[in-house]
């Protein structure tokens, strides 16, 4: 009885974690897309030597968010 109730509780924790992981990963992905767009706007407003690096980091951030979403959906 104790073992089965423990098993159920682990399932509940796992389910909640999965839902939270997918939700947060999706929200983060949307956030990085907005940031990427705004970095483009900022680079057009102020053009400096560091702009390509900033744009690159922003793109890497979007890619990382996408990978995180995939991990949340398939691996967690």
């Amino acid at each position, binding site marked *: 009885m104790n073992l089965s109730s423990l098993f159920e509780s682990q399932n509940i924790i796992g389910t909640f974690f999965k839902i939270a992981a997918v939700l947060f990963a999706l929200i*983060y992905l949307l956030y990085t897309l907005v*940031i990427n767009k*705004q970095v483009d706007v900022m680079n057009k407003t*102020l053009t400096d030597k560091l702009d390509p690096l*900033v744009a690159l980091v922003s793109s890497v951030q979007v890619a990382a968010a996408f990978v995180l979403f995939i991990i949340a959906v398939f*691996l*967690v």
Partner: protein
Amino acid sequence: MENNQKSLNKRFFSYCLYPDIRFETYQPGENIILLLRAHPFTQVHWMVNSIILALILAGLNFIMPAFFNLSQIFFFNVFCVIFLLSFIFYNFIIWYFNVGIITDKRVIDIDFSSILYKQVVVTRLGEIEDITDKSAGYFESLFDYGNVFIQTAGTQDNIEFTNIPFPSQVVEKINSLLPENHESE
């Protein structure tokens, strides 16, 4: 290239003389004299917060194995590290793109107060009525940074450069650029 003077950067690119930049409303032939950003010391708070978050994450890794399996802990760590790096990047670009620019013709204030809010205020040197610099506090005196407030004529927006290095030098520079028959304090 219009700026033939040699560039000089002080205080981690927060005070740049004759910078090699272009901005949205740049006019060909305009000489860019000064580029200003907030003093680096004013950014210490988010750097400290980042370190604290990293330490909290490290500490949580000792507790999590009791409640979560390996894949969950892996996801949590990856998410937190990426979030932390995003936090640092966000604060960096807010500091980097919030600038004040002084040219031989105009004063420009570019504000990205949050990532979604952009304001560009442009004032011709001839429309400047009053310039005030304020530097109050222990750290402001120690690191020589403060605010410069530029009052403009009529209904135009006033300009404020906040937490910039060497505020008195900035005021001096603007005064030196004002038209001869136009004096301000």
